[in-house]
């Protein structure tokens, strides 16, 4: 109990400090307030849709909340307000506040539909990777290159995340968002992911790519990604469909390489896989 109280005290102190330091620490957790713009054309389209509808909501909010606050302030009985009990109906007002929202909705629906059509257009992909969800890891198979491997939570995170492990998650780099072997894709290339699952439903998501898709046993879903040519780097996400006990512990990590680096990686992987697959055949030839 004392430890809990201490922890709460420390947390409250930390909260107070953090609130004071809020503008200074925009890069830390406090500054994470919005959706990332991401590194693909689609993710930027989605971000701009998100911001458009957000600003529409802000505008409508200013109007509606303004109206409410005005009424609350101006028509108080304590200020001597007399009710106008004849004001019970107005067809004109009702038509106006039905038609205007419809117009706003149409204005919002058009760009949304346009982006959706773009998202669904999976033509012209140059590389296909099959993604399979398992409890609780991902399997990636490069269908054109004969490479395949599993990708699961990195050892450091896995040790630290055990109940009462005593390890401070802050001391683990990329806690819960790191894997032993990330998916590798080339930048600037339209990559097709075929997403499915082996046991229960999972969902594959990298916020910087703008989209998630369910991985459903017995079904194959399609998702395409085209990371900007200059946005090489590592991008992280998580399984987003409840998939059992360790749902929170099956991250998605994608390493985006330049096309040349990617080709070199493929060659190296193929060589390694060749070696790995010949070895067991040699040793197990007796049986």
């Amino acid at each position, binding site marked *: 109990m004392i430890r809990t109280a201490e922890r709460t005290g420390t947390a409250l102190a930390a909260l107070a400090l953090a609130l004071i330091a809020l503008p200074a620490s925009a890069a830390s957790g406090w500054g994470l307030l919005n959706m990332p713009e991401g590194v693909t054309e689609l993710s930027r389209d989605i971000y701009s849709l998100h911001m458009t509808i957000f600003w529409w909501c802000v505008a409508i909010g200013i109007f509606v909340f303004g109206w409410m606050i005005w009424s609350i302030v101006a028509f108080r009985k304590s200020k001597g307000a007399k009710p106008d009990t004849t004001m019970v109906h107005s067809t004109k007002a*009702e038509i106006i506040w039905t038609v205007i929202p419809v117009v706003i909705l149409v204005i919002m629906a058009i760009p949304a539909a346009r982006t959706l059509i773009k998202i669904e257009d999976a033509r012209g992909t140059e590389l296909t990777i099959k993604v399979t969800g398992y409890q609780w890891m991902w399997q990636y198979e490069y269908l054109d290159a004969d490479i395949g491997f599993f990708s699961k939570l990195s050892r450091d995170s896995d040790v630290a995340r055990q109940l009462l492990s005593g390890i401070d998650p802050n001391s683990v780099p990329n806690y819960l968002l790191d894997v032993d072997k990330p998916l590798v894709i080339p930048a600037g290339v339209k990559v097709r992911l075929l997403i499915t699952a082996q046991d229960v439903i999972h969902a594959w998501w990298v916020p910087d790519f703008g989209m998630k898709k369910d991985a459903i046993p017995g079904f194959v879903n399609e998702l395409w990604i085209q990371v900007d040519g200059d946005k090489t780097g590592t991008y992280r996400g998580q399984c987003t469909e409840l998939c059992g006990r360790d749902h929170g512990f099956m991250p998605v990590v994608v390493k985006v390489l330049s096309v040349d680096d990617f080709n070199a990686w493929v060659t190296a992987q193929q060589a390694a896989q060749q070696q790995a697959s010949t070895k067991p055949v040699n040793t197990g030839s007796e049986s």
Partner: protein
Amino acid sequence: MATHTHDAAHAAAHDDHDHKPHGWRRWVFATNHKDIGTMYLVFACVMFFVGGLMALVIRAELFQPGLQFVDPGFFNSMTTMHALVMIFGAVMPAWTGLANWMIPMQVGAPDMALPRLNNFSFWILPFAFTLLIGTLFVPGGAPAGGWTLYPPLSLQAGDSLPMTIFAIHMMGASSILGAINVVVTIMNMRAPGLGLLRMPLFVWTWLITAYLLIAVMPVLAGAVTMLLTDHYFGTSFFSAAGGGDPVMFQHVFWFFGHPEVYILILPAFGIVSEIIPAFSRKPLFGYESMVYATASIAFLSFIVWAHHMFTVGMPLAGQLFFMLSTMLIAVPTGVKVFNWCATMWKGSLTFEVPMLFALAFLFLFTLGGFSGLMLAIVPADFQYHDTYFVVAHFHYVLVPGAIFAIMAGVYYWLPKWVGRMYDEKLGKIHFWLSAIFVNVLFFPQHFLGLAGMPRRIPDYATQFADWNMVSSIGAFGFGFAQLLFPYIIWKCVKGGEKIGNRAWEGAHGLEWELSSPPPFHSWETPPSMATITRGAEH
């Protein structure tokens, strides 16, 4: 009609003709709408605290990154059980309790139409929830696949699976019986002269809710029965390996699930439509458009279900249809919000506790409506889906939405029920603590979701630590503030200041024409036309 000019005073004189049973028999064999209503409300209150305790387990674990208190499997049970208990145990029985208390009084009836059915529909519930909560103690633990029970995950449960399914069947039966009773009462027991379009909005919204319940609870029963046969009798409705389709479960579930969320919120619209005019001392603006808007929302609720599952991989045409139909809901909902605003406009407002809760509903439900509109935009939903943004959205519409409206209703009608006034000062403290902490609790969850935190995870990456801590502080503040609620009610029942028939200066409706507390058999003789006219000044 002239012979029927009996009034509240007359009815009160009949009070000693109650013949009500005493002791435990009064409750176990209850057929009186008020007694059954009270039992529903007490049950809902108990479940609200049980579900709240589960929420606090969740928020305690999420206070810091790393696992400090519970196993991830138990954490999943907590999220699943919290939802089932709150939806089926707290909010729905609270609405039925309010319907039991208020509908006969508001339509000029002596009681509900089907009193024994009423008794049965209540007494199913304690057994259903004993079974559901009992799953915490069976091998394999409580259900942990989410309240949505998606297969194949939900089929991995142990002994909890058949118990949960049977409990859901019982809750469904209880809801259907309660709904039938409401429909029959409203259709057949209205006082002569009380036309449909003179009914109070609470009666209207409940009538529509009752039809929704009758329409969709059997769908849920069908879905969970198919889960049962898939697990125990070798069928493959939802198993791809046997030629079934796991996504079909989601379609069937949400065909129930979306109307269900309106079942949770429509009576709230009704209550707010009673309270805002009362404390604005002005009739409800656009009464008929309120009724039609409610009916439109109910109709639309049947054709938007797949917006809960945009990421399952639907055809483009399907996604467009469900996006557009979902966006349409904003129109009738907007009409309601505008009507409430127009009701306050040029009114004469006072801010007693029921009004405060109704105003918080108005602000915060609208906020939840905005995030709902954002979620309707399919491409953006690909980012929002199954993140804390969704958690923030539906908690905004359910906690300061449904729960605040229930509390507003209880504070509004409690003086009528017991004939005594609650402690206004304590009520205000309860309100302000609730209103502040509910925002501390849920507002940061918008940030967490947008920044990429999935829902239903027991532990998170360290960049999410700051806002999770704030959210957890809000949760404990909100949770403890709720302890005031039963205390205020208890204090009011025990010794509040006595009040007359009309507890609130601006309150209209037949219930205020009865004595406080009302006679055991509310309207033994139908109210006169004059009484109806006086009461029906919406």
